[in-house]
């Protein structure tokens, strides 16, 4: 029992559940809940992205495109076509999943920086379409989105949203752990992401990469859908290049190939702009300096580095 709890699969999940359950006691008002909800949504996207970047070794600089597509699917289907929000969310996720599946094979053929370019291009094309189709999307000024409801029940108040997002986050972590611990995931990790080595071991690498790409895209789309219903508004910048960069930064900052790293990275980068407001004119400069500093001194990311330090000490 004790041994079981120590594995990341159950122990970590339990710890995260406890944190989510206890955190509200320390949050003084709704603003803090709001920040935590955004942390949770970003964490969901980042966990998916980390599966792709950290575990499958495939960089993506266009993931905000999937987030944006999910967000706009929900926005357009509920506001313009009066779909029930949950149906819109699922339709968006399915659509994004199909798109990701369709482009996965040619895109996953690319390597390294070419892959970075491919995904970046895909994200930018999506954001250009969302910006230009004014009649459908409201254009660069964005469009409002009305409330969320599940079978007639409408979540209202930040606390309800907090629990929804917290639950989704736990579900995502559980799903990600299962993918990572699956035979293919383990095989790929065992050979440190080397495809050639995995292939000689008889692992269907391409299949695995496509699967992870689709899963990460769908997670981003779902987070986007929940995001618009919570925020009540969406602009094309959600799908933009800068948002993609923010997401990948969260992943790398928290730690590649670390699911909890993605959560920590999302938490830090989401709260940092709020924490740095006291810098005023120096805010941007400080943000860039922190980003560089962390990556120079902790190139493996916060969680893996900290974990190693702890392990060394207990030894």
């Amino acid at each position: 029992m004790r041994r079981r709890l120590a594995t990341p699969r159950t122990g970590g999940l339990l710890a995260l559940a406890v944190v989510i359950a206890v955190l509200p006691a320390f949050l003084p008002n709704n603003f803090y809940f709001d920040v935590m909800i955004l942390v949770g949504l970003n964490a969901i996207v980042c966990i998916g992205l980390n599966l792709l970047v950290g575990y499958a070794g495939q960089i993506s600089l266009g993931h905000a495109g999937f987030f944006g597509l999910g967000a706009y699917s929900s926005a357009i289907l509920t506001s313009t076509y009066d779909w029930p929000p949950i149906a819109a969310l699922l339709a968006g996720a399915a659509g994004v999943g199909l798109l990701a599946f369709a482009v996965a094979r040619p895109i996953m053929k690319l390597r390294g920086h070419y892959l970075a370019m491919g995904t970046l291009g895909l994200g930018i094309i999506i954001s250009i379409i969302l910006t230009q189709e004014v009649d459908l999307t409201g254009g660069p000024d964005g469009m409002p989105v009305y409330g969320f409801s599940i079978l007639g029940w409408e979540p209202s108040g930040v606390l309800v949203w907090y629990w929804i997002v917290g639950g989704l986050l736990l579900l995502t972590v559980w799903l990600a752990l299962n993918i990572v611990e699956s035979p293919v995931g383990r095989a790929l990790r065992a050979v440190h992401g080397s495809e050639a080595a995995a292939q000689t071991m008889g692992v269907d690498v391409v299949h695995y990469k496509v699967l992870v790409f689709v899963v990460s895209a769908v997670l981003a789309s779902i987070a986007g859908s929940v995001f618009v219903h919570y925020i009540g508004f969406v602009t094309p910048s959600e799908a933009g290049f800068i948002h993609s960069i923010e997401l990948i930064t969260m992943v790398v900052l928290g730690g590649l190939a670390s699911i909890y790293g993605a959560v920590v990275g999302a938490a830090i980068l989401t709260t940092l702009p709020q924490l740095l407001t006291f810098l005023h004119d120096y805010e941007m400069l400080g943000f860039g300096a922190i980003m560089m500093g962390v990556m120079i001194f902790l190139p493996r990311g916060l969680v893996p580095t900290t974990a190693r330090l702890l392990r060394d000490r207990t030894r």
Partner: protein
Amino acid sequence: MREIYGRAVTGVLSALAVLCVGAGGAPAAEPIKIGSFLAVTGGASFLGDPEKKTLEMYVARINEAGGVAGRPIELTLYDSGTDAKKAASFVKRLIEDDKVDIILGGTTTGETMAVVPLVERAGIPFISFAGAGVIVEPVKKWVFKTPHTDGLAVRKIYEDIRANGHSKVALFAGSGGFDKSCRKNAHELAGKYQIEIVADETHGKGDTDMTPQLTKIKNTDGVQAFLYCGFGADAVVAAKNYRQLGLALPHYQSHGSASKRFVAGTGEASEGMRLPAAALLVAKQLPDSHPQKKLALQFEADYEAKYNEPISTFGGHAYDGLMIAIGAIERAGSTDPEKVRAEIEKTTNYIGVDGIYNMSPEDHLGLDTNSFVMVEIRDGDWQLIE
């Protein structure tokens, strides 16, 4: 790990909150809390920057002079980085954490529209500094705005085009929110002014060359006037390319280009261009009888003395927003949100930098085309034409 982090964040955030309150809480009277979020960095920073400077300068002045009804003003200002999501986050912080009495700001339409549901739900008066008409049309209970709308600008331009006997217009617009809204208005209002749009081109943000689009306009038959919707560096590139191709049609731009930087950036290329602008821009040329002349000259002198940079009309939006808010708080005799809101709505005959405001339950802007003057760029300076 995460729990510790969560606590650390909570701790730091509350420490900061205490610091903020502590800094402003020294005087005996309870301060009036004004919250603001502006695009001080990012794509609209050239709008947000003068807005920020104006707000900070006048809040400091008012406090030096003893505040409003004996109460000092405490300004909490966040930089939204021209990002609607960040804007929404900061407005939640202003409402929930800083507990401000009124919110001024929102440099762009996207940022403003993203926070409209929040202020409506919270019931806090909100005066936006963003351009598009959609902010106040239809009227939203708690939302007001000070800048002229792009619709007003298009009307003023169309009036001038018709007055010169032209009717066939070539339209060229950028991809930003303002640009697209202006383009939409240009299409919708064309019929009313018997104007026919014979060419319609757009360009991307940050484009370095727009000659292909302008070549198409040049090769369109029968064009009598050229209207550009957009602002900032893009507007300069458009004007330069227009001149480069040797186009000589009457060239109109929107009030988004009404800044000295635009004239300096375009040089020769903007000679003879016409645009609608706030009276502020040509304050010295206004007849002495003009009601806005005194205020405009004063504002210009104050701003240029303090910041040593030429004035743009964008700071004026912030000035008017601040003064309308303060007027309403004075009349209401408190910071009770419902009373302040009602008083803002009753703003009549307020002579501002942007025009003379007459708000009503049906009109949360309160300006008409008379708040614009038509100016022409001559010898690198503004020339009032009427």
